[in-house]
């Protein structure tokens, strides 16, 4: 319990402290030390609670509850102020509605809004806490140097680094709070904090575009927030005495029909936060934020809150048609976002779309919600978080070093920044290749969907979707490994500090693959067992084979040494035309041209313009259908 409280409160304290730290070196020290503390605490959490199942804590509620309402009101006022300042009336409206609803809730059910236990921890929370505690704090450490460079590259942006780190740490606290809370009111409170953090960080550079995108994110998340609070009111109304805001009780409630409507509403909130279609646009827009923000909020942690809540509610969804259609929203998002990613050459945009796609896949698993799918979903959360964080941070380094985050400009990275290229390679491999994590989860998902009625839809989606995924990842990977000649190495001379988090995260990606049987048996399987009474298991033989593949992959590079000496080096084939080593040749009209190898983007087929609208339309229909179905079930 102390650990839990520590994890929630400590980052807030650090956040406040950082408001007053202006020197980079000092800030670096503070951030590193607190990161160590937070990381250490989350590991301690793992060791302390991993084998205990769900543990509940009755935390002080009255005072905290009141404080939360006050803060919420303050935030609502802040949003209204900002909305007025930037003339975004929709945000004002939504914030006002939320405030009214919160007040209404407090007034109407004030006496009965009690959860038996406000805090709890189980294996799933531990996994989330580890992601937040380890990856989150690594990203925070990385950010210090990144932001310093960022401001050197962008002198036009007002230097608000103290504020930046305040928000980052406040956000970490909120995330911990969110995954440890058993009280839906609390969850809602933390949920709103993450929304605000995201809003503030997206708008960090204060450019017009950033502000616009920040508001877009805000509006969409507030929309989810409204749904969330409505769900709480409904729950409170249905069970006024016992306080239907106790998460554990809600989930355990046998009366699925009654819980289903609130669950679907909360699921909707999850959809907005996880940026599934049709709300995916806010996440794309969020890419204007500095890269660590994208890594932290918009891929490895905050958006995971959306799928976290979906996975939490998946026992409710399981077997219902409403859940099935939420799953389909995820499925369609997975397919469409993966397809759109093909047409993107901006690395962050690709990462964003791939994030959306994977969140969609997780939502698909959660919505359908059988035990094997929940198992797969959690596995996806883990692997996605590590690999994606690595890719975002790597992209950040590359962008700061080479001045571009266009994938085409990463051509020959293996020559220019070998270490970085290898890390990116591992990150990308982590996203789509056997035996890395994401693929294991997809595989598990296929095996699980086969056993679900109408699971064929999802299998089809997965079959197409993963093929599409191969395309855009492999071509990026290809760019990295292209051996260009006459290119200069630019790795050196960069700050040393950001590398440490990168190495550690790379290590985590590999460790996650090597240790995934352990992760599965120690954390995920017990959780699934606790919820469903059955659990998913990997075949031992397959695990062995995958470890063998991994070992092969690790050993194969040694073969490089074999080839080194013997071969004669020839220039590339240029149709017989003489060319220079960097592929310049004498072209028509007397021009000297350079052969360009560029990836395919197939915009005609997979362009955003082509796919987004239909995908979004389908998803809107599916969301509406899920509401109707939930209503019908009642």
């Amino acid at each position, binding site marked *: 319990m102390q650990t839990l409280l520590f994890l929630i409160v400590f980052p807030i304290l650090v956040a406040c402290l950082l408001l007053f730290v202006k020197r980079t070196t000092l800030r670096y020290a503070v951030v590193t030390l607190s990161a160590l503390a937070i990381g250490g605490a989350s590991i301690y959490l793992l060791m302390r609670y991993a084998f205990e199942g769900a543990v509940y804590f009755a935390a002080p509620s009255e005072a905290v509850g009141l404080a939360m309402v006050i803060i919420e009101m303050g935030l609502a006022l802040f949003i209204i102020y900002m909305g007025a300042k930037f003339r975004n009336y929709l945000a004002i409206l939504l914030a006002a509605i939320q405030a009214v609803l919160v007040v209404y809730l407090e007034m109407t059910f004030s006496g009965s809004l009690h959860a038996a236990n406000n805090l709890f921890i189980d294996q799933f929370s531990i996994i989330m806490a580890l992601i937040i505690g380890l990856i989150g704090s690594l990203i925070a450490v990385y950010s210090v140097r990144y932001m310093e460079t960022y401001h050197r590259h962008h002198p036009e942006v007002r230097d608000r680094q103290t504020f930046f780190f305040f928000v980052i740490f406040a956000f970490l606290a909120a995330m911990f709070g969110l995954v440890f809370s058993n009280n839906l009111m609390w969850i809602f409170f933390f949920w709103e904090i993450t929304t605000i953090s995201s809003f503030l960080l997206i708008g960090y550079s204060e450019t017009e575009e950033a502000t616009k995108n920040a508001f877009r994110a805000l509006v969409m998340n507030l929309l989810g927030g409204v749904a969330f609070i409505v769900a709480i009111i409904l729950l409170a109304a249905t069970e006024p005495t016992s306080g239907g805001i106790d998460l554990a009780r809600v989930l355990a409630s046998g009366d699925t029909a009654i819980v289903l409507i609130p669950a679907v509403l909360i699921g909707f909130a999850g959809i907005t936060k996880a940026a599934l279609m049709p709300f995916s646009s806010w996440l794309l827009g969020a890419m204007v934020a500095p890269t660590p923000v994208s890594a932290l909020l918009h891929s490895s942690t905050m958006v995971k809150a959306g799928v976290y809540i979906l996975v939490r509610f998946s026992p409710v969804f399981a077997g219902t048609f409403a859940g099935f259609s939420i799953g389909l929203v995820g499925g369609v998002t997975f397919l469409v976002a993966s397809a759109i990613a093909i047409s993107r*050459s901006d690395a962050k945009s690709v990462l964003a779309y791939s994030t959306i796609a994977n969140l969609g896949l997780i939502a698909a698993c959660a919505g359908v919600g059988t035990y094997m799918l929940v198992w797969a979903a959690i596995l996806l959360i883990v692997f996605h978080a590590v690999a994606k964080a690595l890719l975002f941070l790597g992209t950040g380094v590359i962008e700061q070093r080479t001045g571009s985050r266009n994938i*085409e400009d990463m051509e020959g990275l293996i020559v220019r920044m070998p270490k970085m290229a290898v890390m990116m390679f591992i990150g990308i491999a982590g996203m789509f290749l056997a035996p890395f994590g994401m693929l294991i989860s997809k595989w598990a998902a296929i095996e699980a969907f086969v056993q679900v009625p109408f699971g064929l839809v999802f299998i089809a989606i997965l079959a197409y979707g993963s093929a599409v995924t191969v395309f855009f990842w492999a071509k990026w990977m290809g760019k990295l490994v292209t051996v260009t000649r006459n290119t200069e190495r630019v790795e050196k001379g960069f700050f040393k500090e950001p590398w440490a988090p990168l190495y550690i995260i790379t290590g985590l990606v590999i460790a996650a693959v090597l240790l995934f049987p352990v992760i599965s048996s120690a954390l995920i399987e017990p959780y699934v067992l606790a919820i469903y009474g059955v659990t998913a298991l990997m075949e031992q033989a397959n695990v062995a084979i995958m470890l063998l593949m991994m070992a092969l992959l690790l050993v194969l590079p040694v073969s490089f040494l074999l080839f080194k000496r013997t071969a004669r080096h020839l220039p590339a084939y*240029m*149709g*017989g*035309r003489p*060319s220079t080593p960097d592929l310049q*040749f004498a*072209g*028509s*009209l007397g*021009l000297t*041209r*350079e*052969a*360009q*190898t*560029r*990836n*395919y*983007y*197939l*915009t*005609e087929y997979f362009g955003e313009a082509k796919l987004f609208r239909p995908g979004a339309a389908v998803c809107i229909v599916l969301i509406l259908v899920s509401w109707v179905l939930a209503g019908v079930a009642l």
Partner: protein
Amino acid sequence: MPERIIVPFGPQHPVLPEPIHLDLVLEDETVVEAVPSIGYIHRGLERLIEKREYTEYVYVAERICGICSFMHALCYSQGIEEIMKIEVPDRAHYLRTIWSECSRLHSHLLWLGLFADSMGFENLFMRSWQLRESVLDVLEDTTGGRVIQGTCKVGGVRRDIGAEKLAEMHRALDPFEAQCRDLGDVFLNDETVKYRLQGLGVISKDEAYALGAAGPTARGSGVAMDHRETGYAAYGDLGFKPVVETAGDCYARCAVRVKEVYASIDLIRRAISEMPEGSLDVKVKGAPDGEYFSRVEQPRGEVVHYLRGNGTKHLARARIRTPTLANIPPLVKMLPGAQLADVPVVVLSIDPCISCTER
């Protein structure tokens, strides 16, 4: 945003038997820019007139190109004959017609094969070239050379085809035509071939005319222009109508050539039946003095030999404008918008013959 790929296409490229180079600028696989550049076969043979007497120059003219070698010899000889006012015997006209049409047959069959190959239809390539061999056998039996015939000369022809051989050729035409029609059916009706050709590299009638397109490239766009209509050699006697298609795409150009194969077979058949008796050549004395633009319809279109004599054994100028050169501007217009996979198809659809283009 699609990124631009730049590929050096050629001069050595397996799909194009002859060296031509293109700098292809692609977006994905769509061609946005393709500038052809030539010059890999420019030998400078026009200046060989300084070394060769006008009668010997026929050998050089033949080797302007090894595919329609006979046609070049014919065009050259006709030009000199026109300048020197030589009347060529009728039999020579007929023999020239037969060999011309044989050349056209072998050239078109060769092209059909290469064209099939450019679409990745290997079997069709093999089949076309297998049929072509029968034409080459006839050419070898009647002239002594498979691809370079060496039988046309100023003032007539050097070799005769005996009555027996003519009869044999005549007999062989029917089965040969049947085989060609089977082959043509594949080109004209096969779905995969149509899928590759239709709507590709479209060039309208007006555009084709304005750009100066020649031969099947023009006729595929509906420009009814075929120099055999002017009735040189025996075409005037035999009668001739150009084969025209209107779609202006690669399919139309292919169809024109397929149908010209049938037409050529028909012409040969009639030339054999109407073959007059008589001598093969007339004696050529003196030296040409004067100028003439000699024009002949080659498989690829109209060729122009501008010959100018100055009263000596050596010509003052020979300038050869070949159909491919005239078809390069249309080609430049056809390429953008095509797919990379279609580049060889489009390029081949004008039946480029770089050898004579550059001389």
